[in-house]
């Protein structure tokens, strides 16, 4: 057994042990579930985010390249990562749940654009460790990592003003290239509590074709073979289904989505996407796919990035003009298209080097989106329920009902 494999297994083992201890501690909250009906888990919630990069800045700052540049990481995180996720402030703002998207740019770009990186699984586990250590050491007063559906239910049952309330964090991966072209790490990651994996990200990586999603690199300039799900991609999707890991189709092109729909069953998630009718990009979902995700009981998470939600010739223009108005219009469009709000969620993609709406750049200020949605759905018979479900209820229902369903 070589050094890196031993190190990898040691990390996995250590984290599993931590997880078991953590589960034992959290058992004390079980009684709260007995008193609450399942509906209570979804009602009167503040916000559940289907996709946010809680620790991406810190991960980049720890890279060797960044450490050799004094002030470089700080400059990049302040000047380039315009949207912010501060867990302490999110806790104060009453956020319920954040799906933490783990994305390692160094893994994805180091062997760009198509080759898988065999070192990726080890790095992926390091990212999970990094988040858990951060939560344990620095954020334990306002956040906790949940690793199963049961734990999530327990945590969500604790509400304000109970001081034990925490923002629940769920491990998710953005791009199955993080598996290193292998399906074996999936079981390890499922045991580590990874709830959802995006099949593809910026590049094909031997798994599935992805739509261009780099705004400063126009769609026209990013031609990639659009061949849908590849052989290893099919294996990954099937294995994820076996292990009860939710499938995230964000970043997938239409043929990829079509393939995933045809080989999978149960709900699919599009964690941070837009509607092609309003924002015509290969990244956006077609009307047909939005409807089929709804029919399968899945969720379409609307990204809080106006560039994708509308049609801009440059990211700078989206930065200037993009606002929450585009978010509410997309939500309204999906509602109109599907005839229900039950398939709609929000996937902010904040702190993921995206340009958010010019009137919302910090996740803890998400109440401004709630207000905008209330305004959009004013006059509807059940407007409060619609807004509450879109902001949080639908996402919570997804994870509490479908996470871990093999």
């Amino acid at each position: 057994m070589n050094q890196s494999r031993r190190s990898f297994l040691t990390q996995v083992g250590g984290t599993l042990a931590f997880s078991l201890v953590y589960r034992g501690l959290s058992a004390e909250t079980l009684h709260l579930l007995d008193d609450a009906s399942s509906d209570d888990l979804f009602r009167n919630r503040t916000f559940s985010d289907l996709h946010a990069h809680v620790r991406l800045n810190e991960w980049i700052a720890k890279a060797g390249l960044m450490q050799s540049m004094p002030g470089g990481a700080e400059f990049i995180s302040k000047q380039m990562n315009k949207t912010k996720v501060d867990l302490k402030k999110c806790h104060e703002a009453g956020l319920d749940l954040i799906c933490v998207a783990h994305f390692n740019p160094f893994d994805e770009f180091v062997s760009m654009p198509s080759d898988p990186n065999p070192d990726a699984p080890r790095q992926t586990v390091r990212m999970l460790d990094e988040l858990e250590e951060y939560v344990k050491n620095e954020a334990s007063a306002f956040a906790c990592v949940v690793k199963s559906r049961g734990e999530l239910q327990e945590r969500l049952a604790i509400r304000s003003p109970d001081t034990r309330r925490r923002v629940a964090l769920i491990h998710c991966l953005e791009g199955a290239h993080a598996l290193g072209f292998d399906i074996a790490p999936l079981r390890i990651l499922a045991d580590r509590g990874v709830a959802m994996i995006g099949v593809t990200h910026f590049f094909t990586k031997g798994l599935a074709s992805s739509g261009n999603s780099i705004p400063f690199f126009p769609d026209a300039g990013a031609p990639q073979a659009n061949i849908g799900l590849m052989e290893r991609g099919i294996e990954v999707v099937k294995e994820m289904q076996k292990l009860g890991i939710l499938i995230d189709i964000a970043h997938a092109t239409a043929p990829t989505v079509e393939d995933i729909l045809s080989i999978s069953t149960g709900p699919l998630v599009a964690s941070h996407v837009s509607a092609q009718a309003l924002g015509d990009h290969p990244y956006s979902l077609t009307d047909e796919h939005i409807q089929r995700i709804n029919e399968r009981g899945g969720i379409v998470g609307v990204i809080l990035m106006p560039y994708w939600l509308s049609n801009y010739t440059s990211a700078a223009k989206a930065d200037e003009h993009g606002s929450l108005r585009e978010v509410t219009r997309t939500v309204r469009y999906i509602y109109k298209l599907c005839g229900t709000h039950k398939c709609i969620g929000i996937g902010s993609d904040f702190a993921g080097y995206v340009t958010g709406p010019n009137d919302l750049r910090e996740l803890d200020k998400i109440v401004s989106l709630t207000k905008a949605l209330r305004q959009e759905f004013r006059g509807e018979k059940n407007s409060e329920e619609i807004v509450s479900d879109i902001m949080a209820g639908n996402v919570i229902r997804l994870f509490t009902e479908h996470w871990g369903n093999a």
Partner: protein
Amino acid sequence: MFRVAQALRLGLVVASVLLPKPSQAFTGEEHRLAADSALAGVTRECAKSIPPNSPQQLSHLITLLESLPKDTSQTFGELTASLARVDFGEHRFHIFRETPLEQALRLKSEDIERVWRVLNEGRELPSASVFASEITVCREKGVVANYLLYHLMALRIASLPLDNQISITNVAEAALSWEAYAQGYLHDALSAGHMVMPWRGNLLAPLQTTNYKAWSQVVSAEGVFVLNSRGEVWQAFGEHLLHWYSPHYEHVLACSQVSIRELVLTLFVAHELPIPGALTDWMRREGILETPRARVARWIEPTDGETLFNTSTPPAVLPSLMYIPMPISATWSHAPILEDSLRKSERRFYPQLRERGLHDPSISEASSEFLYSRTGVPIWLIPPVVEENDVVRADSVVRFVSGWAAVEYYSPLSPVTSAIGVHLRGGVVLPLHHEAVASRVGAGYTFRYKIFQPTLDLSYMNQLSSKSRDLFILTAGHDIPIPVSYFIGKSDGLWIEVGGLNALHGEHRRMGGVLSVGLYWNLDALGGPGFSGTRLRLQYSNMQPEGYVVHAFGLSVSWY
């Protein structure tokens, strides 16, 4: 005299180097390829669908078309490129904020007849190479009117009767050479840079050529969202990018081919040749229900832009008009509800219009500034679900009516200024520990070399202190466009300048040094036809005139 001539010549050389030319619609090679590809596509589809038992003359003519025109020893595409790539006049640009219909309406029947009379004055067939560049009746009427004029001339020439002197080959040659010129205009009408640029024909233009070019470059490279009268939306680009983005190229090619099909159909109909199946299929696809003969008659009879567009029922009498796009900021998008198993549907787009009830009432300010009037679009581009003055209905389409979406587009529709080129500067200098406030005025030039944009400035500063003299300052500077927001709001970047200064008077007239660092803010472009921009600079300067040191703060404004 000789010295004056030499100085003038030197001045012209310097000006030709320093003053950049405006952007082309497409490069010459792009023009050539698009035109030659379009012609080859049409002739091939015709050759494949010749009706059985057709006279040999037909296939001979189709083969001939591929190698025409011969009179200039250039290919069809080369002829198209030869004029389009060197001509930047206003007739090659869309009229800013006018739809293709509004521009087509500018072409009056008297314009067409006047040109036709000139062409028919001689006994020989009118050659495009002789007449085309001389036609000036529509110069100020924009690219759509000019395309129509040249294209109609091609159609009329194609339908000229034959006699002992004039064979069908002669007619085809002459008609195709006119169509080559028309194709140049058509390509310009489809180029992003020629769609949103107000033509620079104003008195201040020579001073702002660089800003004009900057905007043109941004529009060409960033692209602009456009809508044509067929209800298709795409992102159009400019020079060097025609083949980069396939949806744009496909629209340019389709438009060129339709124009050529109109010409070829006219040629076959007028000379009573059998119509290839490809052309009748194309007429059916365009929704033309008349016979080829009836439709061609409407093209070559006395007509005008309004008749050719026929705004009451689709399609336009001249189908190529349906393919000419206009920049768009907001549309109504409709996906028909289909019941087939794949549920695939093509969206059809309608422009949101300026009148109440015809646009989404919650449209953004930026989008609402660029809406066209109802009178600017044919009736088939007004969506059936909205009605003028019925704002509630428009709102309900956005919020409730399934299959419909209100879509917005953000393109570079406002001027973009550039610091490249000539600029004038003026400002004040506040020396620390000295009693006087000095003023500084000058002029400079900013070059572009790869990613660098060095500036050379020559300025005059009056008496800096009681000890100093008036100074001439020669500096080289460079901006660093990284926004800085630590001290006084958010600046657009940093500025650094080094150079030398020299006293104008005095006994010693020793050379001194100057070093300046500071922040700059690009103020909004002044807009309008001037394309000018201003830059405000706040800087600290360390000057050493005549051997002593002066620390000073300066505030200056550059106009470029």
